[in-house]
Structure formats: C-alpha cells, structure tokens
C-alpha cells in the first residue's frame, strides 16, 4: 500500500513559504502585497515619491548650515535624481511594464534617503560659513596694535578648526600705501597646535585649531607694519571646519 502523499499547499500561500511560519506571517505578507499593489496601481500613489522628496527638501531648507557650495554637490546630485525620477513617476500613468513604475519609485525613494544622509553628513561635519558671526572690522590700527576677533559658536556648529581670511588695507587711501609691508600674526594659538601660517599679508588665510566644545572662540592677533602706517583689518571670510 502506497503511503498517502501530504496535501499540496494552496497556490496563494506559496509566496510566503520561504520566510513565513504561522498565521501572523501570512497576514503580514498579505499586507505587503496589498501595499505594493496600491503603490504600483493606485492613481494617488504616483505622487508619493515626489511628496517624499519635496518634504525632505523643505526640511533640509529649514536646517541649511551654509558653507561652501562644493560640499553640497553629492546632495544636489541625489536631490536631482530623486526629483527627476519622482516627476517621471507622476507623468508615467499607464506604463506597458509595471517594472518601470517600480524602478522609478524605488530609485526616487532611495535617492531621497541618500540625499538626506548626505545632507546630515554636511550638517554634522561640513564647513560652516561664520563670516557674519565673527568680528568684522578693526579700523585704524598702528604697528604692534593687538586685536581680538570673537566668534560665537552654536552647539550644532562644533568644529575643530577655523579658516580665517583677512584684508589688511590702508586706513587712509590718500596716504602712502602700507599694504605691501603690513602683516598680521597670531599672538597665541587659541587651542591645541599652532595655526598655519604664523602670519599673513593682505588676503592671506590662517587655519587655526579651535576647541570644538567652546561656545565663544577668541582669536588674538597683532598687526605688524611700518612706522606711521595706519591700517584697517577686515574679516573677509571665516569658515568653521573639521581639520
């Protein structure tokens, strides 16, 4: 007598066989199938990737940390991909192949997530334009005059170095020019190692280590120029960054 073969499973349960065990897993599989079907077929669902990308764009706009545009290249590229594919998903209403819709949606969502992660990386470790927050101008200084530049740092802007570009100009443009013979030296490094370079001329840039925990950064400088020269020192660019 031939033993009875076990009954074959119902066709609708095949999809869950590899991972599912029990009634709850079958229910989860059904929900996922319903969601996927809705995402691929429902008319309203085609707007979903675009809404997600736009929402992420609005949130990044409210928390924009500024700094040089070059650090946003990856973010910009991913946003372009996210918006482009999301827009295509909206426009492609009745595709011949359902895989086109699935691919557009997937790429858009992944690009949105990638853009968000790239933005968070810039916000946490990227360069921050601090030009408007630091002492902007010290006018009418003579040889040996000290000056202190003060920068208030918000908790979210903690970085371990400050790149500082200064303009050293004649106070009186009608007087003999002293610009080529004037320089500014760092009196003492505010934190840790030495700044590079130790002194700069007009248009030069310091890279100064700063305490990332400090909420107020003080940069002490000294002007060196010829006898009788009166100079204005202006901060043209200040950028917080991680060394």
């Amino acid at each position, binding site marked *: 007598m031939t033993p009875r073969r076990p009954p074959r499973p119902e066709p609708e349960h095949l999809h869950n066989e590899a991972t599912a065990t029990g009634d709850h897993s079958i229910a989860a599989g059904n929900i996922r199938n319903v969601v996927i079907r809705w995402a691929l077929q429902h008319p309203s669902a085609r707007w979903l990737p675009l809404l997600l990308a736009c929402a992420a764009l609005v949130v990044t706009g409210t928390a924009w940390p500024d700094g040089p545009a070059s650090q946003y290249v990856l973010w910009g590229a991913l946003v372009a991909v996210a918006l482009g594919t999301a827009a295509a998903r909206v426009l492609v209403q009745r595709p011949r192949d359902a895989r086109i819709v699935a691919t557009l949606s997937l790429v858009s969502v992944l690009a949105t997530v990638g853009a968000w992660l790239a933005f968070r990386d810039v916000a946490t470790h990227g360069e921050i334009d601090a030009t408007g927050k630091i002492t902007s101008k010290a006018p009418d200084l003579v040889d040996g005059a000290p000056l202190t530049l003060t920068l208030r740092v918000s908790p979210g802007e903690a970085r371990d170095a400050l790149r500082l570009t200064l303009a050293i100009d004649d106070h009186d443009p009608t*007087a003999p*020019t002293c610009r080529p013979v004037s320089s500014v030296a760092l009196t003492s490094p505010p934190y840790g190692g030495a700044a590079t370079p130790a002194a700069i001329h007009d248009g030069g840039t310091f890279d100064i280590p700063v305490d990332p925990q400090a909420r107020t950064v003080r940069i002490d400088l000294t002007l060196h120029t010829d006898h*009788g020269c009166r100079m204005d020192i202006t901060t043209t660019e200040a950028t917080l960054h991680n060394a």
Partner: protein
Amino acid sequence: MTTRITRTAALLALATLTATACGTNQPPSLFTKGQVSVGVKSDQPGTSYLDGYDFNGFDITVARQLLKKLGTEPNFAAVPSERRTTAVTEGRQDLVIATFSITDERSAKVDFVGPYATTPQGVMVRKDDHRIKNLSDLRGKSVCAWSGTTSGTALQKIPGLVFSGKTTADGCVRALENHQVDAVSTDTVILYGFAQSKQYPNLKVVPGIDIDSTNRYGIAMQKGHREDCYKLRDALRDYLNSSDWKRDFTTELPVVPDADAHWEAHYKPNADDLDKYSCRDKPAP
C-alpha cells in the same frame, strides 16, 4: 570663375584683417616713438627743477636713465603737484616722474612703476630758529605744505599744529623765509634739495623728525599700457641693481649722505619690492 576667385580672395583678406585687429588689443607702445612726454616738477631743487631752459635733479636723471635703456628720450614739461594724476589720465603726458608717492587712491587711477626712491616726511626750518627739535615741538607752530601732496594730509592729523596750505613748493619756502610760517613739511628728500640749494642758504632740515609713513615714489603712466609698464619696471630693476642709482642720487642730492649715516636704508628702495607696487590697480604683498 574669375569672379568667384576674386570674391573668395576678398573674403579671406577681410577675415585676416579682422582677426589681426581683434588679436592686437594693446595700444601702440609709448617707447616706439622717438620721444616720450614726461611731466615733472619745476620748482624743487635737487629733485626736479627748471634752471633756465634745462630741467635737472634726481627725478630728471632717473627719467633719462630709464628711457635711455628703452631706446627713447624724454621731453620734459612742468606739471603742478595737484595735476600730476590728470596729466596722465587725460593723456597730456605719457609719464609723470615728479616725486609722486604711490597711494591706493592714485593706484586706482594710474599705473605706477616703482618705487624708484623712498623717503620719510620731515621738517625744514630757518637756520637761526632752534625751537623745533622733535615732533612735539610742532604743537602751536605754523607749518606749511603745498596742495596735492600726501604731506599736507599727514600734517593735518597732528594735533595742535597750525596748518598753512600753499599752492606750490616755492610758495611754502618763500613763506618760511619771510617768517610767515615756522616750518615747511614734506618729504625729506625734497627738503634736502631745498636746503642744499644756493638759492636758500638760510634753511635747514631738522634731523630726527619723522612724520607719518614712508613715501615711495613711483613713475605714473596711463592704465592700459601694461606691456610698457613691465618694460619700464624691468628697466628700473636693472637701474636699482646697478651702481648707477647710488651715483645719480649722491650727485643730485649730495647733502643727504652727509646728513644721514643710514641714507641708503632710508632712500634706496629694494628692487625686490618693485613687483609689489608696479603695474597694479592696488599695491599688494
């Protein structure tokens, strides 16, 4: 057939002419002419002075030396201090070599080649007047400077000093001789020129008074002639690096080495500084 060839040749010729015209954007060189018009001072013995029909002085010698290196000759004409900039910008003179200090404001309007000399600003008094020995002695004294100079601007910053402005150097020196003012203040190289002149035997430069910053004299030329500017700069570099500069300075202003032991440090510019001040819209390090 012949017409077509003629038309093609004409078009090619036109294209070549257009390309040539577009390619040569530079104005014609100032130094290819036989003579270069040079604006100078006429009333400053030692530096630039019209003696009869001949100009002489250190500025004049510098002009002759540099233009000789460039294969041309100067044609001098007197220019008052306050018109030195416009003489160049309005094209009345090709160059101005007239104890003309390089400033930011002037560098924006004209191109400078320099410095060909440097000088502090000092004070000149009558030989029999011993009241002024240092800067603080100028308080309450009447001091003259002439218009269009950096010296006048610097004097007006000194508290307590009574500023007296004249239109010419000669006006200030006459006012000093006639006891209308107590002192004349301008670049010491100019003051020594007056003090060594036989015309003014009763005047002396007060040693050790140093007002404001060092003046650096430049040769002014109209902007837009950068190639000529570089040629003149290179000629000046050769001049400064040779012994000619020292010979000419001591010939024209022999009283300076006698009065100042460190005269070369005070009056001779470093050839390495030429690039910082020459042929720029803004002097830079």
